[in-house]
């Protein structure tokens, strides 16, 4: 069907483009890795526990997050360069264009998170098939949510630096208040924010996948994580498709 052929081709383009710009590949993973080494080692020294293990899921999600920002910023470049115009006049539904772009970004971000897995062995992570699948699925769904939300924002913003700033402003607090850096808070509003934050469910899914034997009674259940992340994905995908459909009159 034309819908999925269009999705496939835009998805593939996203991957090829990204890996032809090595600075982007290194940038996202490198930043996350440095955070992990510095913050993990520093806080381990203060707390006396191995914070590097606690911080590892958050590190993977951070790499995902930075890749998402890069990938979304390319929407703005595409609009300015005219490539997107030629896609918009092709005989394919707008929803296919949005899906291709988001799926491409989500795939890349997931891969950029998974690239860190070899380091997980150094902090006692264990591999078990079912939790590992849960980990990949959580990373992917969270990537999809961030990309779909980012698509919607990128469509409304004209300057790539402006987009980077806004995305950092929104995503960094979400990442911090997700269980990536600290597990819980006594503050009621922060508790509430953590509860409605999609990152919380992504980080929880990754944590369960890395440490299948751990005690995670405090974390949301795996099925709740998957259901909520899926719901967020559908919502932001629909929102982005709607915005693109509606903006036909625009320049």
């Amino acid at each position, binding site marked *: 069907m*034309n819908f999925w*052929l*269009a999705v*496939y*081709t*835009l998805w*593939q*383009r996203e991957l*090829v*483009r990204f890996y*032809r*710009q090595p600075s982007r590949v290194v940038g996202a993973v490198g930043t996350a890795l440095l955070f992990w080494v510095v913050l993990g080692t520093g806080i381990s020294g203060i707390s006396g526990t191995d914070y590097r293990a606690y911080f590892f899921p958050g590190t993977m999600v951070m790499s995902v997050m930075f890749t998402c920002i890069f990938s979304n910023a390319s929407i703005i470049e595409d609009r*300015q*360069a*005219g*490539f997107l*115009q*030629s*896609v*918009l*006049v*092709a*005989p*394919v*539904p707008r929803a296919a264009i949005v899906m291709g772009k988001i799926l491409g970004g989500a795939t890349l971000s997931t891969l950029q998170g998974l690239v860190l897995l070899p380091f997980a062995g150094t902090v006692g992570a264990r591999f078990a098939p079912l939790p590992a699948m849960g980990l990949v699925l959580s990373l992917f769904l969270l990537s999809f949510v961030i990309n779909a939300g980012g698509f919607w924002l990128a469509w409304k913003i004209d300057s790539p630096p402006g987009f980077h700033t806004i995305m950092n402003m929104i995503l960094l607090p979400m990442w911090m208040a997700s269980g990536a850096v600290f597990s819980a808070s006594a503050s009621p509003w922060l508790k509430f924010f953590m509860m409605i934050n999609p990152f919380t469910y992504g980080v929880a899914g990754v944590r369960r996948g890395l440490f299948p034997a751990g005690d995670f009674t405090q974390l949301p259940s795996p099925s709740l994580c998957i259901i909520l992340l899926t719901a967020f994905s559908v919502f932001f995908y629909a929102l982005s498709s709607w915005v693109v459909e509606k903006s*036909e*009159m625009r320049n």
Partner: protein
Amino acid sequence: MENVVEVENLSFHYGDKAALSGLTFSVGRGEIFGFLGPNGGGKTTTFKILSTLFSCQPGQVKMFGMDLVKEKIQIRRKMGIVFQLPALDKKLKVRENLEHQGHLYGLAGKELQDRIDRDLERLSLKNREKDKVETLSGGLQRRVELAKALLSNPELMILDEPSTGLDPAARKEFWGHLESLRKEKGMTVLVTTHYLEEADRCDRLLILDQGKKVALGNPDQLKAEIGGEVLRLRAKNPNDLMAQITQKLKVKTLLVGGLIQIEEKKAHNLVGPLLEAFPEEILSLTLGLPTLEDVFIHKTGRRMLEERE
């Protein structure tokens, strides 16, 4: 002749500002039809509506007998579009760009590969197919854009200022390709331009100014309407001289872009009398046949070129 495009009373607004008002024209199959005019004249808005990037009201535009609003996707299948801004992905190779285009038009597998080979050969790009687009010259990139638009075997090709930024040789070559496509495939071509020599190559031309139709017709016919020849004078005090010329020689004068202009059937007969009567005032004098620029001046009283970027 069957009409491929029929536009009826088309208007478009950006907020309060009217970009197009009441435009009506039609384009027959196999025509090379040009839109000429200054920036802000309405060419690009017309292009964006016809290429389905902007929406119009139902009933205003019919293409291939279908309504542009109601049957957008079917219409898109039959069109090839070349944008003013480069629409290639520069990080991808030439062939990769074409593959993506094919997929977006529902082509895949052997048929797609065959068509890519066909278009690469037609446009002499075969030896560059594995090169990244960013390594190609501007002229070659334009050729890839054309190959990309041709891939879906369009019946109608729409191009927005396609040769902007090309040197004259590359521009000539690009037009050669367009003309041979029309000849071989009976393709209809719509093109916006602000180059007069390009406009001259069109079968028919719609001249636009401030969103309105200024003139419509064959370039030679439009020029013939002015009739005769055009004299341009550079003078020390153009306004004074104009009054004196009208008084002495009984001819109509226009002041266009600081030059005095006289359109007369046999304007060459005026050269002697003018130089004898005003030897001091006239700094220079040129005599020529009317150009499309003169057609524009004749209709609007202004020059087209000075309003360009």
